[in-house]
């Protein structure tokens, strides 16, 4: 039907090259993309929500185990990571702002900063995990392993953890599940950041069109917020008062 083809071409004759065929206007396209991202983040909240529910229940039941196990985590590294992530939220927010203003170099620099902070977080997380996996030394010279090696968390050598071993194990499972899933989101985020950065360097973003930077910003903030919940829930169970 040539008439249909004409009408279609007609519609898009003056549209931005960024506009996809099935949208009538750029504004509609942008609204759709933004809403899509928000809905996706809602699914993410539910995804983490399942684990948070499990955490909540076991924390109520097994508070002594959770408190004791929590103290085995490295609060300094966790604290540094919290600062690092909040910093990356700042840089990504500034990157979105720079993209909105159409400032290419500033956008690129801020995206690189965000990526570096994200990598810093993961490197610190790696060292935290490593200690749990190979085991760490107690003051009395014995070693305890908190990673699920050989089918269990070996806390048998620890005087105060051994009696509540199963509670400690559940805490550690949740610790690894929650922070592992969070780290996976960080890794995926850094992958997406790579694409966005490449687009920014190529000059793809203009004052008029910078939707991907905004959507990436939303995702990055979400991953940060998850950590803001994880840090107190996992590291600070028993460190008040």
């Amino acid at each position, binding site marked *: *039907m040539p*008439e*249909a083809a004409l*009408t*279609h071409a007609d519609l898009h004759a003056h549209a931005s090259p960024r506009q*996809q*065929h*099935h949208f*009538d206007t750029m504004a*509609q396209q942008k*609204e*759709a993309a933004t*809403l*899509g991202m928000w*809905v*996706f983040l*809602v*699914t*993410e909240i*539910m*995804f*983490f*929500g*399942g*684990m948070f*529910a*499990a955490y909540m*229940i*076991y924390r109520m039941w*097994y508070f002594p185990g959770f408190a004791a196990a929590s103290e085995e985590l490295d609060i300094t590294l966790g604290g540094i990571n919290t600062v690092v992530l909040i910093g990356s939220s700042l840089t990504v927010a500034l990157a979105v702002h720079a993209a909105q203003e159409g400032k290419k170099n500033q956008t690129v620099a801020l995206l690189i900063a965000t990526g570096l902070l994200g990598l810093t977080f993961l490197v610190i997380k790696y060292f935290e995990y490593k200690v749990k996996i190979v085991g760490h030394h107690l003051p009395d010279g014995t070693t305890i392993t908190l990673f*699920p090696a050989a*089918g*269990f*968390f070996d806390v048998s050598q620890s005087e105060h953890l051994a009696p509540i071993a*199963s*509670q400690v*194990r*559940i805490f*550690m*499972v*949740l610790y690894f*599940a929650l922070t592992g*899933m969070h780290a996976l989101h960080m890794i995926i985020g850094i992958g997406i950041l790579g694409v966005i950065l490449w687009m920014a360097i190529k000059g793809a973003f203009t004052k008029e069109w910078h939707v991907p930077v905004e959507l990436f910003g939303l995702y990055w903030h979400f991953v940060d917020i998850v950590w803001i919940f994880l840090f107190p829930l996992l590291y600070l169970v028993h460190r008040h008062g």
Partner: protein
Amino acid sequence: MTTSDAATAVMPARHYLNEQRGIRSWLLTTDHKRIGLLYLFSITAFFFLGGFFALLIRLQLLSPEGALMTSDVYNRMFTMHGVIMVFFFLIPSIPATLGNFLIPIMIGAKDLAFPRINLLSWYIYVLAGLFALASLVLGGVDTGWTFYTPFSTSFSNTPVVTAGLGVFIAGFSSILTGLNFIVTIHRMRAPGMTWFRLPLFVWAHYATSLIMVLGTPVVAITVLLLAFERVLRVGIFDPSIGGDPVLFQHLFWFYSHPAVYIMVLPGMGVMSELVASGARKNVFGYSFVAFSSLAIAIIGFLVWGHHMFVAGQTVYAGLVFSILTYLVGVPSAVKTFNWTATLYKGSISYDTPTLYAFGFLGLFLVGGLTGLFLAAIGLDIHLTDTYFVVAHFHYIMVGGTLMAYLGGLHFWWPKITGRLYPEGWAKLSALVVFIGFNLTFFPQFIVGYLGMPRRYAMYPPEFQLFNVMSTAGASILGFGYLLPMIYLTWAWFYGKPAGNNPWGSKGLEWETTSPPPTFNFDRTPVVTEATHAYGHPEEVKVA
């Protein structure tokens, strides 16, 4: 069917099916109509695979001692039947096929908001399907489709993780479909297509999408934790190391009960369209039907505990869940009454889709009311894990969803393929399905009430009569499902051209050609009236 239209109808020169040809044009398509068909082919394959297991189950239960297979094999058969039918047929059934095909057309859009994500969702579904098939090749899973812990994590020697990953991955396909629908319905409506002019089919899919988006991630993480526990041997659900198996049930049913509404709500959406068109009347109480979909979606999230009345839940939790379960009956009843009121004094045509709609109305009524029996805690203690439960949810899933799916498939088949199917055969199939269904599942209510437990490969001899009836019914039902597959396929190639609007129905999908052009409409339509504006029945003359 308006025969005068059909007699003169010709196929449009160009449409979405012939604009591009070749396998690549299908595998790389972003056209929601073609993706709907890709889903149709794949879920049909899974439907017959799941049906094959049902057949084996029924054959086994012909005799009390279970002559066909060992208990161990039988466990795998009913598990694979459940897993495949629930996750690979029922959940994607209406949304991914008819919903995908129709929602953009019904709201006057050229496509879904994210066409590439739509295609991605199909590929994810196929990948998930491969995992399900792999778990079959590895011997099949024996945990029941519910994967209850600690059996699934610590004791079962079957490929639970493979099947679990299949369910996990299939979930993402479902999430992406729901996300796409929500954004599309919010942002892609044609000028004049206000929320209260939306077809009720679209409202039902909006409610369904909310459940998909809010519920599916929870089952995803639950299955992931299950796999974590099974592979790494650490306890979250295993009571021997301090875990809680009831927590698994809570997390599982937090999704899997709303998932029942993922399955039946789209069927209710189809029903509203079939009833309106079949009676040539606007749906009685349009806004009540629309909001009852949302009410079902919302209340549906608060009733999961009724699966755990005997699983060690507190009495108080049981009471609350019981009351909430009764509550979800209210919006369901609103729908049923409103469809009936729509039929009242309607100019009813007894075409195949209408016959399926009548079937739905009756069977859903039985399925829904027996749901109230099960919501009563005292009675549920007697009926839990008996064939009464099996019959109840098959009346909803098969008698409801599948009847609506088949009715919808017949109703829109002329739109999808541009051709008419043989009406006589179709009416026959509707009748065969209805009779076969009732013969299969009604005896199960009785035998369940008498105390026959589900998921056993053998049973006391006094239950044999009911089981023989059930198996006989299942054979008839299977025949009833094969028929449409044959004549609908035939019609695709050899049917008479249908014309734009073979039923004389209202709605944007009937204003474009059959099959529609690639971008659905030559020009974006402007909507000026409510969707089901049929006017007074007398004013609309059939043919």
